[in-house]
């Protein structure tokens, strides 16, 4: 494939020539109002209305000091602004954004998606509490070829007062695939193609539908020999893809895209008149696809609800999701059996970061920025250090800006505590009495106890109908079989142990911050598929999907995830791994009721892998004080 596409970061030097060339075009006298059909006037008025609605929220993303680098758009009143990663890449972490009000605001990188070419920055208000104009996010899946669209931004760094330029054109195609530029980054999956004019400097700017809803972030075009200006073929990252990564980016994460952990190829590329099938060839041992029993030659017939008949469709669908998300897939075995299942996606950033980090070598595949002195000599960077935004930067591996992870963690913990109350006072031994219904049909009484010995080592026991299992999770030298107790649960004891640590101690109970997976961090957003309370239900897993906020924890060597309803901070589920190479034990909480001032779940559904294990119904909690 020849190098057909380029990105649209501005090169300011071209601006002067373009201004001069554009001027003579404005000389045709406008038609008088009387000549114009009222329908045309009405359509024009509507267009003007849409432009005016969104115009104040369109940003020029600048080097610190105001030199325009690209465009952006404000999506919340507190100043969160979307742009391209290839715009912020060279100017992070502290930059400035100009709005149509003519003012430059200090801004700081929050999160980024290198592969998807998206970055989230936060603009600082001139006065604490001032609100920014912002736009509404649309639903880009509703966008169709043949619809009108508006692109806005600051092409060629044209407007020195940051008043955005608006261009108008047609959606030319949707669900387009444009392969990565550079080593695996800047891959445009499921993107929107349009003939609306975009030029250098439009990068990162918004694409709107005619209701003024944000449907994409412009960033790329097909140019080939037509030169690096509008060629009638521009691409925007769909807003629906960005929504999936937004929770991660808000949490300061340097997000990663996903792989299935398996190789999928088209069957019979050359032969077929009919649509291709996608078949699995290799499946990594450590992948969820492997654990779900997928075999080479099995057919991938649907991925996250989309039918699959080409690699473009597959790459489009895969590109929509962050690493670690769980999505439903449909697999047809060679024998013809059809099975819908949930798979956890693996990350893919390690693959190319590893390739890229060659010592003493320039990064391949990325254009340099001519005329830009190295940061240490750059006066703009020196000035940026004195910006209040510079105080909002915390560097940490795996994060674009860890400062925002801390903010999001604190906010979520506060929401959870407001919803559930605090169990901090109940640091003593705990017990649950209730009933259990196992997936194999057995049921009966259950008693669960948490007891700390003199050294503070917890032992947790579960007794159902007289059969007892126990575990001292941090006592060391435990076999996998012990950690996974009770058998078939994937480590329910370990999960319940972590649940108590979480409820009673929160941040303080987990490992002090570690390098890549700190002991207690915000993990962005993930879809959760709560298990139906009826343990034998055969309902398709995708039916219960809810998007949750995530806290990731690590206690000793054990990782956990805790899922919260983003609306009110309710704890809806958790996952606990006894081994990162295995499926976690999944807990789904419901029927939250007050116990001594703490709202605790009285129904807990337990699942491991693709099987339900049991549903626990709590009659009573006994919460001991220290």
């Amino acid at each position, binding site marked *: *494939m*020849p190098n*057909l596409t380029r990105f649209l970061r501005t090169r300011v030097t071209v601006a002067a020539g373009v201004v001069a060339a554009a001027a003579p075009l404005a000389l045709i006298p406008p038609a008088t109002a009387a000549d114009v059909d*009222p*329908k045309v006037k*009405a*359509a024009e008025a*509507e267009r003007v209305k849409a432009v005016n609605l969104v115009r104040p929220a369109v940003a020029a993303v600048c080097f610190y000091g105001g030199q325009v680098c690209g465009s952006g758009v404000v999506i919340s009143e507190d100043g969160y602004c979307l742009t391209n990663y290839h715009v912020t890449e060279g100017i992070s972490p502290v930059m400035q954004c100009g709005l149509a009000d003519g003012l430059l605001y200090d801004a700081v990188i929050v999160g980024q998606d290198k592969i998807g070419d998206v970055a989230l920055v936060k603009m600082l208000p001139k006065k604490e509490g001032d609100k920014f104009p912002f736009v509404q996010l649309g639903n880009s899946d509703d966008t*169709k*070829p*043949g*619809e*009108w669209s508006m692109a806005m931004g600051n092409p060629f760094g044209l407007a020195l007062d940051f008043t955005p330029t608006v261009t108008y*054109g*047609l*959606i*030319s*195609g949707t*669900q*387009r695939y444009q392969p990565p530029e550079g080593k695996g980054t800047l891959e445009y999956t499921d993107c929107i*193609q349009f*003939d609306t004019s975009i030029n250098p400097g439009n990068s990162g700017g918004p694409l709107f539908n*005619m209701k003024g809803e944000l449907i994409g972030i412009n960033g790329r075009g*097909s140019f*080939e*020999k*037509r030169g690096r200006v*509008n*060629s*009638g*073929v521009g691409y925007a990252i769909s807003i629906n893809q960005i929504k999936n990564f937004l929770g991660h980016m808000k949490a300061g994460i340097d997000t990663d895209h996903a792989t299935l952990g398996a190789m999928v190829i088209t069957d019979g590329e050359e032969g*077929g*008149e*009919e*649509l*291709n099938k996608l078949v699995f060839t290799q499946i990594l041992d450590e992948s969820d696809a492997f654990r779900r029993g997928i075999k080479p030659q099995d057919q991938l017939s649907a991925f996250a609800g989309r039918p699959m*008949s*080409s690699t*473009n469709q597959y790459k489009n669908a895969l590109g929509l999701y962050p690493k670690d998300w769980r999505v439903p897939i449909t697999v047809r075995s060679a024998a013809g059996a059809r099975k819908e299942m949930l798979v956890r996606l693996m990350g893919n950033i390690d693959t190319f970061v590893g390739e890229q980090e060659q010592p003493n070598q320039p990064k391949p595949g990325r254009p340099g920025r001519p005329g830009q002195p190295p940061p240490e000599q750059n006066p703009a960077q020196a000035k940026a250090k004195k910006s209040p935004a510079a105080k909002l930067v915390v560097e940490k591996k795996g994060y674009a800006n860890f400062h925002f992870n801390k903010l999001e963690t604190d906010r979520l913990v506060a929401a959870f505590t407001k919803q559930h109350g605090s169990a901090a006072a109940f640091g003593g031994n705990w017990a649950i009495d209730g009933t259990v219904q196992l997936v194999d049909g057995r049921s009966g009484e259950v008693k669960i106890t948490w007891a700390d010995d003199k050294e503070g080592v917890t032992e947790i026991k579960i007794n159902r109908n007289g059969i007892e299992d126990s575990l001292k999770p941090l006592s060391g030298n435990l076999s996998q079989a012990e950690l996974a107790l009770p058998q078939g649960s994937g480590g329910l004891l370990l999960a319940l142990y972590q649940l108590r640590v979480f409820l009673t101690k929160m941040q303080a109970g987990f490992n002090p911050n570690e390098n890549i997976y700190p002991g207690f961090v915000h993990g962005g957003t993930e879809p959760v598929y709560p298990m139906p309370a009826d343990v034998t239900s055969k309902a398709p897993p995708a039916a219960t999907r809810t998007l949750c906020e995530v806290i990731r924890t690590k206690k000793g060597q054990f990782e956990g995830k805790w899922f919260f309803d983003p609306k009110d901070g309710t704890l809806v589920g958790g996952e606990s791994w006894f081994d990162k190479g295995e499926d976690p034990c999944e807990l789904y909480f419901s029927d939250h009721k007050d116990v001594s001032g703490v709202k605790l779940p009285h129904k807990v559904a337990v699942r491991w892998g693709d099987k339900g294990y049991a549903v626990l119904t709590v009659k009573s909690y006994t919460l001991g004080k220290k």
Partner: protein
Amino acid sequence: MLRRFCLLALLLAPAARAADPFVDVTEKTNQKVLKVFGAGGFRGATNYSTGTLISADGHFLTVASQTLDTSELIVHLADGRRMKAVVLVTEPELDAALCQIKVDGKKPGEPTGLNLKDYFDIEAEAKRPHAEPGDWVLAFSNLFEIAMRNEPVSVMQGTVMSYSKLHGRRGIFDFPYTGDVYVVDAITNGPGAGGGPLTNRKGELLGFIGREIKNSLSETWINYAIPTDATVTLRDGDKTETVSLPEFVRLGMQGKYKPRIRPVAASGPGGYTGIKFVPNVLDRTPPYIDEIMPGSPAEKGGLLVNDLVSFIDGEPIYSIKSYHEYMKRTRADMTVRLEVRRGDNLQSVELKLGEWPKGMLKPTVTLPPEKK
């Protein structure tokens, strides 16, 4: 009353916009467009084009480009089917190639049994009055090879700027069509767009997107389409006759269209200048003039021995080989502008090319291997 009418109009306006008429037109027209791929699968920058379906039996039109110089022509239908196709007949002066989807087991000329629902009836479409400057147009094509299989082709919009002839572009890009074209204000003629339908806002066929050509004066690309009723005058030996695109299609479908005998074969050496160069000993021997044939266009134009040919029509010429390669694209009666270095100066000379004198040895040019 007037006020009530206005109020009603305002209330209705958003609903009318919500059902954007171009969406339906786009969906329907996409069914009539094929993605055409030449030899070597999907590699190579110009090895793909766009086809417009014109019969239920799988006939389609595309531009008569080198994409078709293959026995392995492949098309992708809107429903995702991938099928073979054959070129039935081409007419360079209409820049049109009539092709047909091939169905395995069917002999040439036999009905294919495809029974396609969606296609343009070119005879009927050609009877429609021309679009006027200022009218909306929609362009459908697989430019930049963006779509594969059942992915819809790209749609672009614009207006007709003028309906006129393209002058003085022939030869530069071997563009033999001399009739009228629609010139449009959108960038519709990207790589591979040629052959796609240009429609009005209702999806009625106006013409076919032309191949990529550049205006040699302004060095800008021209966005144009050859109208559905395009008519050209052809020279067949000593006779002249006119042929229209619908006639070409009708006769072509019946197997009765006879391609004309051209004065100069497309693959010939091109027009005659009467320049002889120094012996071509190197891969990149500089094109120094060694001899000028008496009475030749070069002599009439005032070229001298020892002039170094540097540009033809603005394109740089580096070697004897690149000179011949360029000249291949010209033919007799065309005018080319040569810039030659004479001493320290560049001289500009216009030559009206002639026919090669009988018996004169023509240069042989080997083309560089095609990049894969």
